[in-house]
């Protein structure tokens, strides 16, 4: 029984919580790995991760099986409908003075949530760059040491690369619009055939940021906090665009899909022709799962699209930090990365550098068929950097005030 296990683990942890909780409180030093492995065995790690995608859930379940076999770590996926739930949980624990035995041991995180947790000392670290598998990570070419312009400093470990792509059905829309102005014209000619997830959903907020970057020509002010910029001047084109676009959205903008995957169903149902995605491999995976028509394809905008890395972080009050680090390390392993990149499984971009891998591991990556709807790295192009996280917060608030309430 999973509860019996959980209770046993709870009872057992005070006796064997990490190499020594005190020495770990400042992070992981290189060379301590064997002690971490020893302490991790038998621990139960609660990984708080968004649970709205069945493919991700299946992948996390597989990770659980593997770390159980390999390291004796039990992984429980706490399926969130919103990552903010876990952030608020750690925050309430900090305010209630619960500095050990927190409910969250590992959290799938990036951007504003990372900024907020790091800013409030809610994270354990640094640890990521001392993990054994860090040696394979492509720190030279992939943006894994900053998260939305903020330095990561080892407080979270990368496990997937993401870049904005648009999904369309080639059979219905042979020539999709390749810039935001073109999207606006196309929507005006084809009302009701496009929508985006409703902000504050992160993908909806990402659409706002993507539109802002595309329309403002990648204004350098976006790399700095929003307070430092002339907000109205930078965003006036964006709001004019959104105001013009909204009446031509699906359901005239009176309803929105609540999450990204909902858009795939809308395409499959023939309700919309175009959807934004943060995962270049998502469309291929969805075709394999019958969730998209076989004629679905992806593309990026002419001016490029935003990219970022997905990370896992460990809250400061987790009492199974060793187990959590074992999971974070496993996620960066070639074995897990190949599986995550397989479009039949997840279709996420790898964080590893092919040059640093052994020949066998490299061959495993090369043997992957990335899927009919996945763009090659050359077609994806270099990802545009994320704006400072404060932009996402501000744009989301503004959108809600302008369009979140219709009546």
């Amino acid at each position, binding site marked *: *029984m*999973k*509860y019996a296990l*959980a209770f046993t683990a709870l009872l057992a942890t005070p006796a064997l919580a990490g190499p020594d909780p005190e020495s770990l409180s400042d992070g992981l030093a290189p060379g301590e790995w064997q002690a971490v492995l020893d302490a991790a065995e038998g621990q139960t790690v609660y990984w*708080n991760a968004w*649970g*709205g*995608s*069945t493919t991700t*859930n*299946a992948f996390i*379940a597989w990770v659980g099986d593997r770390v159980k076999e390999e390291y004796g770590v039990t992984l*429980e996926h706490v*399926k969130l*409908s919103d990552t*903010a*739930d876990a*952030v*608020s*949980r750690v*925050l*309430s*624990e900090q*305010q*209630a003075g*619960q500095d050990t035995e927190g*409910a969250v041991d590992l959290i799938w995180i990036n951007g504003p*949530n990372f900024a*907020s947790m790091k800013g409030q000392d809610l994270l354990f670290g640094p640890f990521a760059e001392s993990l054994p598998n860090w040696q394979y990570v492509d720190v030279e070419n992939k943006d894994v040491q900053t998260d939305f312009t903020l330095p990561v400093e080892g407080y979270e470990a990368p496990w997937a690369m993401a870049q904005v792509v648009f999904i369309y059905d080639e059979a219905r829309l042979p020539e999709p619009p390749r810039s935001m102005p073109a999207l606006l014209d196309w929507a005006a000619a084809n009302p*009701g055939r496009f929508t985006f997830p*409703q902000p504050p959903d992160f993908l909806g907020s990402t659409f706002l940021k993507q539109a802002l970057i595309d329309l403002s020509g990648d204004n350098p002010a976006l790399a700095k906090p929003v307070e430092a910029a002339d907000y109205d001047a930078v965003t006036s084109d964006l709001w004019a665009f959104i105001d013009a676009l909204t009446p031509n959205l699906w*359901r*005239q*903008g*009176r*309803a*929105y*899909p*609540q*999450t990204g*995957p*909902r*858009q*795939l*169903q*809308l395409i*499959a*149902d*023939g*309700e919309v022709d175009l959807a934004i995605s943060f995962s270049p491999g998502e469309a291929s995976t969805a075709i394999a*799962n*019958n*969730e998209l028509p*076989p004629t679905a394809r992806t593309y990026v905008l002419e001016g490029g699209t935003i990219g970022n890395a997905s990370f896992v972080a460990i809250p400061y009050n987790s009492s199974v930090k060793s187990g959590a680090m074992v999971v974070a390390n496993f996620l960066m392993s070639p074995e897990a990365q190949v599986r995550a990149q397989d479009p039949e499984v997840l279709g996420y971009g790898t964080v590893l550098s092919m040059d640093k891998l052994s020949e066998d591991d490299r061959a495993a990556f090369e043997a992957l068929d990335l899927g009919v709807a996945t763009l090659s790295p050359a077609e994806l192009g270099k990802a545009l950097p994320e704006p400072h996280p404060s932009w996402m917060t501000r744009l989301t608030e503004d959108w809600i*005030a302008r*369009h*979140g*309430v*219709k*009546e």
Partner: protein
Amino acid sequence: MSRPAPMPLPRATLPALTVALLTLPVGLGLFFTLAPALGYMGTGEAPFMRLADWPGIGPATRLSLSTGFAATALSLAITALIAAGWHGTRAFALLHRLLSPLLSVPHAAAAFGLALLIAPSGWLARALSPWLTGWSTPPDLLIVQDSAGLALIAGLTAKEVPFLLLMLLAARSQTRSEAHARVATTLGYARAVGWLLTAFPALYAQIRLPVYVVLAYSMSVVDVAMILGPNTPPTLSVQITRWMADPDLTLRGVAAAGALWQLALVLAALAGWRGLEALTARAGTALAMSGRRLHGLNTALRALGLALGLAVALSVLAGLASQVLWSVAGYWGFPDALPDDLSLRTWARHGPMLAPVALTTLLIAGLAALFALALVTGCLEAEARHGFRMGAGGRLILYLPLLIPQIAFLPGLQILMLTLGLREGLWPVLLSHLTFVIPYTLIALSGPFHAVDSRYFTAAASLGAAPNRRFWRLRLPLLLAPLLTAFAVGFAVSVGQYLPTLLLGGGRVTTLTTEAVALTSGGDRRAIGAYALAQTAAALLPFALALALPRLLFANRKGMRGG
């Protein structure tokens, strides 16, 4: 060696424990919702001002009132029309048989099934396209999640009609409604009109509290509103749930203020409903006194009752059927009426993850239903032995957890647990489920309990059987069928709980319901279908057992097979 004295059943212990389980969570929860709403506990400045400043407060308030009133009025009207037009007929037996199992279909599953059915790309549109409608792509119509909440009203009505119909049937034995209706017929009234004018008022007095429960529930439901309700803005209860989950802790105060506003709305709505009752009663009396027989109306009322009753039953059943289909569908594009191919792929993919969640669900529901049944049976037996009956105050306490919106007191309970440093988990979830399971178990059991002929016990006592022996050897076997049904009702109630599991489980307790609702935020219909079906199966299973067991155990005693 003397035998140990049999344990006496104290008069007040079990009733007191039950009352505590019903009132303490509600009372403490409300109190700890109040504190942050008034700005204590570090929840920021003036939560009520911030609530009033939320641009969606007006529409969300209107939605809460309009959907709640409409769903309740519609459910009650359909229930009354079915009973009025068709009581005692074969059509009524058929409708009853179709509707009863729907009572245990969890709200979320029914709502999701309805969405699959009526969306512009739903099964109805697929079945009629393109040959009838000419649609090759779905029309851009806002049907599900519409701003007026019509889909939400439909979804709630489909679930509340079976509940009210069963309540109405149970109330028949406590009134002389059938005799009234017969007298009306002999006076020349047609069936439906006569029943509505004479039998319904007495029956309504009996089911008033259940109707209030429906009103309070419909105004503040979270899971159904998340699936069928609008989002620009959402209903008040959904918005409160979102504030509760926001990383910005000062929004907890706003959530608490919203919860109190929701409570005030429900209380005001109940008062308003009470006023409408008086007006309706006056109009009904005037109509009856006028002596008009209204024969023309009779056929229309009967047809309407049958049509709406069938629509309710079929919409839920077809919704379930479309979930079955989606869970085994290959690619299924619009406007195909059926999927390209069928496969067990979805079940193979999700089966291994579904199994432990199903086990947790069954464990919680089984324990909650069992505890509730033991408590309720104990209370009823104490009543019988010590010769007291639950008064009006008792009934009110019983209905308290159902009348106070969950969203108004569960957040407070969560805050209380955090403040005390208690860990969310299985036990808090179980306790909170008990608060909602006990009332339904008592409602289901008390009628049959009191209906047992007391002369059996007098006879047994005169033969020398002590109270405990009478209870174990006579009362329980006699009540086997209703006991099992009450257990099944409690089980189904527990399976369907969303908000208590979410808030008091702290995310660590996943049941089929929390899983199904979480999945609906994603878009994988095949997975949602599988989980919703598993949820429905979990709720229906005990009902099947409750029907089957007495028939097996009492195969040779017709009168004890129940149902």
